[in-house]
């Protein structure tokens, strides 16, 4: 008996050990359409037994395991497969079908209206280097963006004029916060510049319409600038220009960094050498300082702070065709503070908060009179992103705006003061719903409450995008946009409605390797535009909301960094038809800031042997219209077409020394921006006129930029 039992035991033991006998699992992996999927990982969970499917999608797993296991199959962006198998030495045949899974990374994004410039692979981009090496930009963010379609070059302004919108219809946001005064101040008809250095920003989104409900108070366009994250190492940057210079120092510690910079510009010596169209008493000078602070918080949080103070002065003889030359002096002081904090709470929730503060003073003196405008403004914002499911994303937030605007006018024996304060609250919500990886819908809206005007306004926004394949997609967008009249009008009335624009747009975009094509057709309808009447300007009765307008057009953009080795070029063309009745327009007319045809061609070529990046930009704008009071027709006179060919050359002397030379309007095309007319007709009934010209026919910039870091500390004495 004992022996018998022993044998039974032995048999059991042997049977158990015999579990080491192999089970073979075979099958084929395909997708839903029956297409085989070579390269799929097929394995038994928690074992080492697994394989990769061959060119026909077949697999064979041999395993010595025994019992109940989970068979898994995984391939790229397909949803993983998992199913139980019982291993008992018998051959198993298992065909597997993998389904496409939803991947946020590969999913379609809404591109209607937006030119995105970031390090995302798909984006049509202009990064900081692109901006400063684009000839004609003169290192200005806004200058470089004028080489994109949808913009009109308005040489006497320097602001961004988008799709029939005036310069004030484009708003700038830094890290989500409104920048009330993104431009320098300048005398009438003289181009302004952006206040910000392109190298401050790691990402730029320039939207020419149909943008998210997160952004309000912009009728035509928003420019969203995202500042850099952490600096890498301690550095000292020195920039020397023919018109001034700057110094910036970086201090880096674990998880944080501080940058301080100081700049000084004085155009005096330069203007003494290069002939100017304007008669300066004191050439423009400016003095400024910036502070930039970064600190990581927790695992994924980042706190950013930026502060900028700038003081600029200039004095010129301003020619009024009616009254003759008068001295015109401008003194601007601008303080801008911006803070932002963002963090990811968990897989579903992320929070972003921030605020900006602006204090701006423009003091103008002319013919013994003085006008001073003071703005103190703040914007605070909190945004929450919630992704309850993979195909659903909700973005919502609240905002608070407050600004106080004061105007003081003083003449010999009199002075006038006007001022007002606005407090505004706003909230927005937007839902992104993915029908599939290829199709996304966005529905949202914005609600704003103005205490000064005692109004509520709702702006619905909608968009959809469909991805045709990995390289191309269509987007559609619709939205209502509201923007208040400018501060100089709101001083005298709180009875106005905000101006309103409705955008409809269709966009197609193609991107493959280093070539991008983008086209957009749009229609815009303006209503409630502010109109003036004959009542005195300080009376609320002088202003109405009786204006209207439309704009439609087509934008084309092509960028290619592939065809020409070391070459990079882009071509932008925009066609626009627009008319509006606003301000003092007696009828519908094309405003003077619009060119029907706009063309811009940018080319850059890197020459490794010379360590040089030369570039050229050609710009054409068809003749713009302006009103000549000496003719009966309104806005019927035409300026000459705008032509410019700008060249620049960047030379990398060594890794930390760069030389840069730029010349605008090299051929010396005659640029003229219409005429300025006398306020009153002369004895013969004619309005005297004077041409509006750019500050100079050409602008020359010569600069040298030096970076000193720990690695090349001892290179200080090597610099010639």
């Amino acid at each position, binding site marked *: 008996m004992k022996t018998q*039992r*022993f044998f*039974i*035991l032995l048999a*059991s*033991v042997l*049977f*158990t*050990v015999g*579990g080491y006998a192999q089970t073979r699992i075979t099958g084929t992996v395909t997708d839903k359409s029956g297409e085989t999927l070579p*390269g799929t*990982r097929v*394995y038994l*969970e*928690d*074992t*080492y*037994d*697994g*394989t*990769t499917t061959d060119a026909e999608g077949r697999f064979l797993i041999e395993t010595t395991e*025994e*019992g109940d296991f989970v068979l898994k199959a995984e391939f*790229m962006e397909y949803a993983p497969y998992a199913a139980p198998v019982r291993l008992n030495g018998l051959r198993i045949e298992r065909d597997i079908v993998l389904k496409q899974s939803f991947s946020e990374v590969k999913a379609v994004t809404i591109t209607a209206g937006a030119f995105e410039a970031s*390090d995302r*692979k798909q984006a049509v*981009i202009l*990064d900081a*280097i692109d901006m400063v090496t684009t000839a004609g930009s003169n290192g200005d963010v806004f200058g470089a963006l004028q080489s994109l379609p949808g913009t009109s070059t308005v040489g006497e302004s320097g602001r961004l004029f988008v799709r029939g919108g005036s310069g004030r219809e484009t708003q700038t946001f830094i890290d989500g916060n409104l920048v009330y005064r993104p431009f320098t101040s300048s005398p009438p008809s003289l181009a302004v510049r952006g206040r910000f250095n392109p190298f401050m920003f790691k990402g730029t989104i320039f939207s020419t319409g149909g943008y998210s409900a997160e952004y309000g108070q912009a009728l035509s366009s928003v420019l969203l600038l995202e500042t850099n994250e952490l600096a*890498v*190492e301690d550095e000292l940057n020195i920039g020397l220009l023919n018109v001034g210079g700057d110094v910036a120092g970086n201090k880096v510690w674990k998880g944080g960094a501080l940058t301080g910079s100081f700049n000084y510009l004085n155009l005096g010596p330069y203007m003494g050498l290069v002939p100017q169209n304007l008669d300066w008493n004191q050439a423009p000078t400016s003095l400024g300082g910036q502070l930039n602070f970064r600190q990581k918080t927790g695992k994924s949080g980042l706190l950013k702070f930026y502060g900028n103070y700038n003081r600029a002065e200039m004095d010129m003889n301003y020619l009024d065709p009616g009254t003759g030359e008068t001295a015109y002096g401008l003194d601007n002081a601008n303080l801008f503070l911006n803070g932002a904090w963002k963090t990811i709470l968990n897989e579903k929730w992320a929070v972003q908060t921030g605020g900006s503060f602006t204090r701006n003073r423009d003091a103008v003196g002319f013919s013994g009179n003085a006008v001073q405008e003071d703005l103190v403004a703040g914007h605070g914002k909190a945004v929450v992103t919630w992704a309850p499911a993979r195909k659903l994303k909700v973005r919502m937030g609240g905002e608070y705006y407050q600004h106080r605007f004061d105007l003081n006018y003083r003449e010999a024996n009199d002075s006038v003061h006007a001022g007002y304060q606005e407090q505004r609250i706003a909230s927005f919500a937007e839902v992104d719903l993915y029908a599939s990886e290829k199709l996304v819908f966005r529905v949202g809206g914005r609600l704003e409450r103005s205490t000064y005007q005692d109004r509520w306004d709702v702006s619905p926004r909608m968009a959809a995008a469909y991805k045709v394949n*990995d390289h191309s997609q269509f987007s559609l967008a619709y939205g209502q946009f509201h923007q208040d009249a400018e501060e100089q009008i709101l001083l005298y009335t709180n009875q106005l409605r905000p101006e309103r624009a409705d955008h409809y747009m269709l966009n197609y975009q193609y991107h493959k*390797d*280093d070539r991008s094509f983008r086209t957009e057709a749009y229609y815009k309808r303006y209503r409630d535009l502010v109109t003036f009447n004959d009542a005195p300007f300080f009376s609320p009765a002088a202003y109405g909301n009786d204006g209207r307008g439309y704009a439609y057009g087509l934008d084309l953009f092509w960028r290619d*960094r592939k065809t020409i080795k070391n070459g*990079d070029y882009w071509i932008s063309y925009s066609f626009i038809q627009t008319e509006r009745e606003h301000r003092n327009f007696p009828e519908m007319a094309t405003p003077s800031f619009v060119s029907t045809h706009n063309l811009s061609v940018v080319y850059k070529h*890197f020459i*490794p042997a010379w*360590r040089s990046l030369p570039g050229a930009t050609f710009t054409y704008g068809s003749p713009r219209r302006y009103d000549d009071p000496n003719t009966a027709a309104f806005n019927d006179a035409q300026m000459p077409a705008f032509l410019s060919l700008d060249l620049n050359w960047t030379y*990398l002397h*060594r*890794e930390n020394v760069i030389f840069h030379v730029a010349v605008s309007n090299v051929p010396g095309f005659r640029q003229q921006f219409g005429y300025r007319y006398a306020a009153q007709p002369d004895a013969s009934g004619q309005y005297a006129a004077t041409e509006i010209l750019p500050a100079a026919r050409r602008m020359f910039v010569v600069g040298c930029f030096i970076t000193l870091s720990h690695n090349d500390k001892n290179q200080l004495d090597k610099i010639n």
Partner: protein
Amino acid sequence: MSTTTLNITTMKSTLITTSKVLLLFALFIILGTEVQAGGGKYEKKMAETLQAMGAAESPQALQEVANQFLIVAKAEKKEWLPYYYHAYSHIMANFMLKGQPEQQDLMLDEAKSSIETLLKMAPDNGEVHALNAFHLMARLAVNPQERGQTHSMKTQMAVAHGLAIDAKNPRLRYVKISTDFGTARFFGSGGEKHCAAAQDLAAEWDNFTPESPLHPTWGKNLVARMIQQNCGSEK
């Protein structure tokens, strides 16, 4: 294991009278083999797969190897090396796909997913940071014109992070010198000043002993090639 336990329980109930010694003996055999296999199996499997990785001559072969590493990674939840080699195989596959930027990015995306896991699993491991830096350098090489600025910065950050933990790590030093050469070449300023560092690294390479035969050893030939390419002409 669960099946074995089940068998033993069944045995126990049917063979009540069986000598306990014999039963224990049987148990010992069964468990013993299991335990022994569990310990040695990992090393054996890794060694085999590493050998296959060395022999792989096509991106497909490397992907197969990478799949094997990932299967092990998922079974051995505490080991970081399987993830490491999953990522490394994909970086190697990327180099074989030169000229097909979209394919290269797919390979590097796979590598990145494991590197992200590694950075969470072993944030204080110099080798992990070396691999991260190597991956970023490979990313840059896919499209230097577009990624030159951002990725050289990211690579330098990863190297700096790694060297702060593991200053002697030869692979971190290799990536650092390699990016230094790259910058020097781009700016045409002589790379000679980095040759001394490269030669030092080559000379000291063998002094760095990996923790185990499974730990990373790659890079010696890359250093030799780097020296040949950048310091060849001068003495």
